[in-house]
């Protein structure tokens, strides 16, 4: 008999992270740190042209360079490399061109891989690139989406006969979830129409991508800086004809992803192909310039919105038409990204009619794909900007317009005009808290005073009352949207003989803190010490199954799988405990890590004792197998719907266009919180990226299709000096769709913050006649918007 101490709940504690010890001491295992003996190094020759036919490649001189082991082009490996996968064919007739890792006959964006040098060291490989001669026959370039879908446009893929990949439509009248939006617009007392540009962004994870493949013994081990070791393994098996069971993928320490490492990359395929050909370990680590040029980009939409409303501010319909830039090819989930926004333009608002129409467009640019929020930031930006524009049109306070339209807390669960059922929410509570923390009324007074006295520095207040759908995803819903995989997650639990616990999770962390949060969950479920739990992930040999980490899914889906795995262990342990204590299972209660016989104090067995007993297996009940392990899978029945209210105050210098964020309040409702420290960190980082889009970041091509923002000098990720301190707080309306009552938090900050900032910039300038400023709201763009509103000439 053991003495069992009462277990203090771990869930809800701001536990310091287990992950930190090795990260703050430099004892790290980034992919680029891994160099098996005899490793060869890759350098990649990339196209300097945005569109050209490759008429000739002379690899010979490069082969003669010192240290060079092999040189090959797309033509040499055309069969081995297959075509890079797109797992989300959104329509049956989607135009889906081949996507070679190495270009074969034609290049379609500047930076596309053309040839590869493999050498004994990186410097020799890079040097030898200069000796490769490529003859390009230039082809016409199309960069602008509206030009690309116009008649007579140059074609990115001439054999396809069109630059339109697909058109996907949701219409509430057709779906039976609402009325006709054209009728709503025809009957409207007020209509507001706006065109917004979602500029192209670059995810800019801090760790450049790196991949190592070791083919020793016919077992291919790939280390890659990826978010998706499981999906990557399957996709590489399918596309490169490598038997899946002969391929092990390891995501070691991974330095951020934000969707940017949710990809099967040309570089991974090239490195695998090279290792197969040369029977040696091969490694590729990109430079930042290569990363900005070729790692997939995000956003890049043209949005046309038409909102119908009554004079009292009630919305009666919303029509959304999008052009979404695919870039030159389709990546892993490229076409699906705008669809993740399709259900979100109606946001937290009740509206009787809604229509969404999106055309995916090919251009001669790097391909786009998921970037933090993926479709939902674009949608949230557009609707939250429209709410401010509607308020301005009606002369109402923008918060009042929102209040009149949002779903009241007593109306949950609520099925929206887009057909989603929001399980829970309390927009009133989050808004009240945010308004109080922000000092909304006092700031409005100050704004009026500044306007009154014609202060050159005007004050603007921006609102974003957002929700989002995350926790991807119910497999049946993904199936209905033609996605190629499910949305479940898995967990395995191993009680070790000494009573310690190993948890294997199918989600793959790269900064999110799974090891800490999962340990907290397991500690509570099993009543074991937090320190006794080890969380394993990111290696397909350790974790054979999994759907990986994206879409704010890890806790809501993967965390729930962990709870299910704990439940199975407890169920089995109960059988053993009943046998050991010579009682019926029903007579046992499990608490604080021990089974106790009800009404018989002192008669108990700890889970650790049971683990040892199942290891020894000397006296197990009939039908019970040795060891105390479990496997569980969870497939969510619904998405997760975090929400909140973000308020931003900007000071805008009307003479220089400079924008300064004076205060930023974010009140988020992510349900119950496992670790408030981690949740706050996720919100802070999300805000920074959303503010980055609003004020700083922009991926720009010149008219020939050369990326002008190819370094961190030009692609301006915000620095510490660019950002304000944030005021963050929470309301807690538990999710009803998982046992922890948790909602996703990884993307919320990014989704919410961009419109809050831009609304604040526009609000500051509205008396000057400005009703939009294109992102990023740089000093020049703000100044230009003021000049344009004044009817003045630009400089």
């Amino acid at each position, binding site marked *: 008999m053991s003495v069992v101490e009462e277990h203090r709940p771990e869930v809800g504690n701001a536990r310091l*992270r287990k992950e930190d010890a090795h990260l703050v*001491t430099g004892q790290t295992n980034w992919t*680029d740190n891994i160099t098996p003996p005899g490793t060869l190094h890759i350098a990649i020759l990339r196209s300097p042209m945005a569109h050209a036919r490759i008429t000739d490649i002379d690899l010979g001189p490069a082969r003669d360079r010192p240290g060079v082991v092999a040189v090959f082009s797309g033509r040499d490996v055309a069969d081995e490399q297959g075509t890079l996968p797109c797992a989300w064919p959104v329509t049956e007739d989607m135009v889906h061109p081949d996507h070679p890792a190495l270009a074969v006959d034609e290049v379609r964006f500047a930076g596309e891989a053309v040839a590869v040098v493999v050498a004994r060291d990186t410097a020799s490989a890079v040097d030898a690139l200069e000796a490769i001669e490529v003859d390009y026959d230039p082809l016409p370039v199309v960069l602008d989406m509206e030009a690309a879908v116009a008649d007579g446009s140059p074609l990115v893929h001439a054999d396809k006969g069109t630059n339109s990949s697909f058109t996907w439509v949701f219409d509430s009248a057709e779906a039976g979830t609402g009325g006709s939006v054209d009728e709503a617009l025809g009957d409207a007392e007020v209509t507001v129409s706006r065109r917004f540009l979602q500029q192209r962004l670059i995810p800019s994870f801090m760790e450049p991508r790196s991949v190592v493949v070791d083919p020793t013994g016919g077992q291919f081990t790939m280390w890659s800086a990826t978010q998706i070791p499981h999906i990557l393994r399957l996709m590489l098996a399918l596309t490169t004809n490598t038997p899946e069971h002969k391929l092990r993928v390891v995501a070691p320490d991974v330095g951020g992803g*934000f969707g940017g490492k949710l990809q099967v990359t040309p570089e991974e395929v090239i490195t695998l192909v090279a290792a197969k050909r040369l029977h040696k370990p091969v490694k590729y680590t990109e430079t930042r310039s290569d990363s900005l040029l070729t790692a997939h980009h995000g956003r890049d939409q043209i949005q046309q919105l038409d909102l119908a409303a009554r004079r009292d501010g009630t919305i009666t319909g919303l029509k959304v038409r999008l052009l979404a830039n695919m870039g030159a090819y389709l990546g892993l989930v490229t076409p699906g990204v705008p669809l993740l926004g399709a259900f979100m333009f109606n946001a937290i608002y009740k509206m009787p009619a809604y229509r969404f129409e999106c055309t995916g467009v090919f251009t001669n640019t790097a391909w786009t794909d998921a970037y933090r929020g993926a479709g939902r930031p674009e949608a949230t930006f557009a609707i939250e900007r429209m709410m401010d524009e509607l308020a301005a049109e009606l002369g109402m306070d923008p918060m009042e317009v929102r209040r009149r339209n949002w779903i009241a807390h007593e109306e949950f669960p609520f099925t929206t005009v887009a057909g989603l059922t929001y399980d829970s929410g309390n927009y009133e509570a989050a808004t009240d808290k945010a308004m109080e923390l922000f000092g909304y009324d006092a700031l409005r007074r100050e704004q009026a005073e500044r306007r009154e006295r014609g202060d050159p520095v005007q004050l603007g207040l921006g609102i974003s009352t957002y929700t989002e759908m995350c926790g991807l995803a119910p497999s049946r819903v993904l199936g209905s949207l033609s996605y190629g995989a499910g949305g479940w997650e898995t967990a395995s639990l191993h009680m070790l003989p000494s009573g310690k616990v190993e948890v294997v999770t199918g989600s793959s962390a790269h*900064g999110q803190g799974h090891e800490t949060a999962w340990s907290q969950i397991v500690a509570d479920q099993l009543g074991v010490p937090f320190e006794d739990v080890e969380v394993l992930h990111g290696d397909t040999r350790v974790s054979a199954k999994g759907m990986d980490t994206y879409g704010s899914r890890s806790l809501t889906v993967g965390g729930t799988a962990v709870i299910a795995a704990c439940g199975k262990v407890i169920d089995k342990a109960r059988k053993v405990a009943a046998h050991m204590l010579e009682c019926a299972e029903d007579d046992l209660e499990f608490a604080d890590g021990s089974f106790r016989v009800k009404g018989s104090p002192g008669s108990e067995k700890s889970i650790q004792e049971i683990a040892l007993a199942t290891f020894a297996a000397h006296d197990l009940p009939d039908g019970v197998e040795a060891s105390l392990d479990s496997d569980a899978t969870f497939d969510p029945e619904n998405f997760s719907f975090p929400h909140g209210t973000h308020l931003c105050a900007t000071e805008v210098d009307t003479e220089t266009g400079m924008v300064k964020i004076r205060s930023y309040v974010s009140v988020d409702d992510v349900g119950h919180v496992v670790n408030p420290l981690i949740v706050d960190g996720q919100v802070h980082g999300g805000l920074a990226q959303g503010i980055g889009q609003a004020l700083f970041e922009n991926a720009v091509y010149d008219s020939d299709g050369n990326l002008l923002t190819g370094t961190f000098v030009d692609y301006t990720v915000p620095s510490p000096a660019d950002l304000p301190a944030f005021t963050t707080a929470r309301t807690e309306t538990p999710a009803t769709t998982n046992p922890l009552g948790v909602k996703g938090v990884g993307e919320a900050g990014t989704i919410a913050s961009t419109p809050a900032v831009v609304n604040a910039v526009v609000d500051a300038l509205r008396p000057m006649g400005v009703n939009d400023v294109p992102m990023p709201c740089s000093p020049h763009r703000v100044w230009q918007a003021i000049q344009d509103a004044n009817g003045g000439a630009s400089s």
Partner: protein
Amino acid sequence: MTNISVTVDGVRYDDDVEPRTLLVQYLRERLGKVGTVVGCDTSNCGACTVLLDGRGVKSCSLLAAQSDGHVVTTVEGLVPTGEDGALHPVQRAFHEQHALQCGFCTPGMMMAACDLLADNPDPSDEEIREGLEGNLCRCTGYQNIVRAVSAAAAELRSARGAAPSTPEGVASA
């Protein structure tokens, strides 16, 4: 080849290096100091920051040859070797204030913080933000980094009050 003699994290090395070898390549590839990382190639991100004679430098922008005769401190030398589990006040503060998520920028950020605190032992939040302007983080939004540097500054000041330590606030090489 150029011969260099450099002290890194308390150990002296005499090595022949190619003239074009960057300090960060020498640290990572020759000495195995892989705690120091490369985040960009234009000296914008600061992930590769180390201390050269106690002052912060971006080791991707320095040739290994330029470190000849100097003392380099990396994240792996913030605490003298042999002190297993011991953390420098800056490391401890980054952990306690949750100033890191993926951790890739962290070594450079901490070394830049050491440099900042050597100049200004009691910086305001604004001064911390300005002082770390050359280091990028994509995960944290910097909020907790600012808190961590502030907390480390307080601890270093109080330690200095109790017992004088090295002016840089780092382990002497």
